[in-house]
């Protein structure tokens, strides 16, 4: 099993925009192409936003390259979360202000798993990479001269 940590970041509400940019770059370098890359960032944002809103105001996001997929785990110190937090059906557009974020994250992810109890929530999402890279992608490298953004 190949597994490499690509990103490890603690966050509060003020860090969410920066976290999205880091996720975008890391996912690009890992080989996740558009439009899945933007969907990945949106899904992770919904889970991190949930941690900020309901999980004690802060959390930790870690991203791995794992066997042909990007795996993102978001943890927080809140009251915990169960599968029941994800609505079985999408709320009607004209009803209610919340409840769509985790539903959308589940829709967009190839796999989403919720665990954790009193010690806080643990939400893990996976996005399959279309092409598995032989080498482990590194966070700090940027596109080489003349190379397009998509790698």
């Amino acid at each position: 099993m190949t597994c490499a940590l690509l990103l490890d970041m603690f966050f509060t509400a003020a860090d969410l925009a920066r976290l999205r940019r880091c996720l975008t770059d890391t996912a690009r370098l890992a080989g996740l192409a558009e439009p899945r890359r933007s969907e990945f960032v949106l899904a992770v944002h919904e889970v991190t936003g949930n941690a900020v809103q309901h999980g004690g105001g802060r959390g930790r996001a870690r991203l791995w390259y794992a066997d042909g997929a990007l795996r993102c785990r978001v943890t927080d110190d809140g009251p915990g979360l169960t599968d029941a937090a994800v609505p079985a059906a999408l709320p009607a557009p004209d009803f209610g202000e919340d409840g769509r974020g985790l539903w959308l994250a589940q829709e967009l992810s190839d796999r989403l798993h919720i665990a954790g109890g009193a010690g806080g929530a643990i939400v893990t999402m996976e996005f399959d990479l279309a092409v598995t890279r032989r080498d482990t992608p590194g966070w700090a490298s940027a596109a080489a001269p003349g190379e397009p953004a998509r790698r």
Partner: protein
Amino acid sequence: MQPDAHTLAVEQMRLGDHAFAHYADDDVRWQVPAVFAQRGLGRGEKVIIMGDPAVSHDEAYQRMAAFGGPAEQARARGQLVFSSMRALIHPDRTFTARRQLSRLREETAQARWEGYAGLRTFIDMAWVRDLDMDVDAVMRREKTVGGLFASRRYAEICSYDRRDFAPGVAEDMRVSHPVALLERPGELQAWHSAGEVHLIGDGDLLTRPRFRDAVQAALAAGAGGWVLVNLSRVCFMSAGCAGDLLRLIAQADGYDKVVVRCAGLHARTLRHLGAARIGRLVLDELPEEE
């Protein structure tokens, strides 16, 4: 500074854009160049940062890396370069627009020769004080550089410290640039015109109230018929903002039609969240951009 038709988030800058940026805070000042550089490196472009001459290149790099992430490899291979206006026009000691434009054309050609897609340059206008320039000459330069961008191989940000430039001068500079950037990445601004609301920047947890209020205001201001919600300059839209938008449109009984103009990702998000169930909603989806 009020947003208008040429306001844009730095994330949406492309080669060919000539942008005005502004700040009045020593932390905020590094955020726009950090994202500008990060995006350029990711797109295979060369990036030259001409920061405040009073700040060392290493400190500038560290301040940018703290916000945009490290880029040691890009710096080591010369894709990310820290320089100054003084160095750019060397051996000339006095700034002239002709000399500067000539050197920027050379640098663009050099970047292309090195294999990059183009060149993007960030210029902190602190150089005006450093080279003892008068503001009128700078204004003339800003208004006559259009040709530099025509090939769409070059992009530039001119960043003004509002503590150093009088409000009227900063506003004149803002208006004279084809693009005016939001002050900081991640913020959201709204601009209203007759029957339209234009949202610019990121719609997320922090900016959701502003997003919702702007759409609400546009719907309240209209007299029925139709209204345009233009999201073409929105870089990011959370499920919360998308849900608010759909809810407000679903409840906008006075309107026959609400047109939402947006990129493909936002259109897909809205469809995921039930856009098709709202009869008066028309999605005007823009072509995808990498």
